[in-house]
């Protein structure tokens, strides 16, 4: 499906370029003036988000389902979810600098998925993938990755602020980062939200998979359950005051890196050999 003679991959690519521009502009402005340009950054991120949404929508229309079949689509959906979350929570919690970090994450992951063409191989729809329960399960699971992505960013901001305060740094990025307390509260809320969404995703998936046990891919199940368990343990430890401040933030960053790595077994185990549906022109 084309939009003004542009295919969905081109639209997604243009969206990623806008994320890259937002990050580069934000970085340049920060280095030059030690200030953060909110409105220009937000405009570029919104532009990128609109193009990416359109690209994903067109691909979904082509596939006739939510585009979550290969690593490219999954990474794009994670990026899309993270940016959506930023657009919701950034202004609400006056975390404008989160836009800078979110655009950075979107630029890196988005560009990586675009350059690695092997990630966007054609695939054949598995029969189960057309089931509404399975589609909702997959969409929610990947959305939770987006939440964990934003959590990793706010945790990174926490670590930077903590480092700046401990090392008595007052220049550059440090004075404009949100406060330690604000970031800690945000991390707690995002972690609860991420675990809740991933739990709901499991519950929704169980509706289908409990009657179709043969469709369950063990590598995918083990990886996602391990990830859910790890995030839940971190949440419980934090709630019971046994994992706080720097260690809590560090755990959230490490877990997101593991979550990204886990996308690989989740994707490869679910891959069905291609027949005719080609994603690459």
């Amino acid at each position, binding site marked *: 499906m084309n939009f003004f003679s542009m295919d969905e991959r081109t639209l997604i690519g243009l969206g990623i370029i806008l994320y890259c521009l937002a990050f580069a502009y934000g970085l340049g402005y920060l280095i030059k003036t030690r200030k953060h340009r909110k409105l220009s950054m937000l405009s570029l991120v919104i532009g990128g988000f609109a193009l990416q949404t359109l690209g994903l929508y067109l691909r979904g229309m082509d596939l006739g389902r939510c585009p979550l079949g290969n690593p490219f689509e999954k990474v794009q959906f994670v990026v899309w979810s993270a940016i959506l979350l930023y657009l919701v929570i950034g202004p609400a919690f006056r975390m404008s600098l989160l836009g800078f970090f979110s655009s950075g994450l979107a630029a890196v992951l988005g560009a990586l998925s675009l350059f690695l063409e092997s990630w966007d191989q054609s695939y054949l729809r598995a029969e189960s993938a057309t089931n509404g329960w399975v589609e909702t399960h997959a969409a929610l699971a990947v959305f939770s990755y987006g939440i964990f992505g934003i959590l990793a960013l706010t945790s990174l901001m926490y670590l930077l602020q903590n480092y700046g305060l*401990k090392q008595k740094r007052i220049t550059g990025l440090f*004075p404009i980062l949100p*406060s*330690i307390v604000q970031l800690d509260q945000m991390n707690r809320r995002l972690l609860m939200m991420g675990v809740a969404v991933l739990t709901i995703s499991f519950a929704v998936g169980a509706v289908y998979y409990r009657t179709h046990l043969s469709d369950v891919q063990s590598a995918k199940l083990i990886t996602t359950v391990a990830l859910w368990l790890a995030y839940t343990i971190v949440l419980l430890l934090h709630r019971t005051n046994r994992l706080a401040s720097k260690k809590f933030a560090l755990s959230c960053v490490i877990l997101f890196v593991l979550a990204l790595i886990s996308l690989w077994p989740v994707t490869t185990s679910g891959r069905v050999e291609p027949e005719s549906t080609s994603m690459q022109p």
Partner: protein
Amino acid sequence: MNGKNNRGKIFLQGVSHQTAPLEIREQLALSREQVESLYQYLRNSVELKECLVLNTCNRIEIYGLAEGSVGQDWFLEQFEQFNHLKTAWFADFGYWKNDLETIRHIFEVAAGLDSQRIGETEIFGQVKDSYAVGVQKKTVGPVLHKVLQKGFQAAKWARTNTAISRGQVSLGNVAVDLARRIFGHLKSSRILVAGMGEVGEMTVKALISRGVKNITVANRSPEKAVNLASEFGGRAIPFAECPNILADMDIVITSTAARKWIFTRKMIEKASKLRPDKPLFLIDLAVPRDIEREAGDLPGVYLYNLDDLSEIANANLKIRKNEVATCRKTLSKKAERLWKSLNGD
């Protein structure tokens, strides 16, 4: 002009933040009683005709007028027996100045050019107070009197005619900025103020102006604690209670004259464990320090001392660098004029 006429030799032996780190300065710092003893000791020196002790948290300087060709060796030898003055450290971390250099130095000190926060005005009051003590003790004679009076005039000129104090960031505002980086809004922050000095008061006032309401004051003198508490609209507690309420506090400001730590790492670790999800901001304005340095290594604990705050406040120094150079040049000319007049030229 050699300063060795019948008037005698003007000299200065000092240690300041320019030459010694906080760890050394806090061990050299003299209590009020020790300054008293030092004056008594100085009076016994046969060669000394006049003297003045300037003792602040950033410097200890002894100005004098002596007969004969006295030098740093003479000074160190003279004060070797004075228990409270670690003369060896004066040799290692201090500076010795003679005649014109001494006058230049006191002019720059009074004008705030030698301060940690260049252009600050508190030092002017501290020099004046030290001068008043010297006059009262009759250790300041006609020569030091003239030097000091001219120094005050030069300092006033510098403040009025140059921009050295312009764009000055107060330590109170630096502390507020740091507190906001830790807590965001400060309205619900709880503050413990242990002891009170000029900078401490400035910091508390800056925090109050940003909405802080919950203030607890502790002082060795219960009466002073009650007075300060009523001034800030807070409550007073006995000094010994401080470690027990640490866990309920968000910001702790200390500026006591204690010679030992009033908050050890152990005390802060214990308090921190009772509030693992809340950070603790410790502002140690005392010299010698009130809070064990290692407490700053604890997670969720942010410890800043006087040097840290001053360094931050001085961050905009570059902007005033040209102004400082101009000011220094003019003060030097004024010092030379005075030196000539003292020598009868």
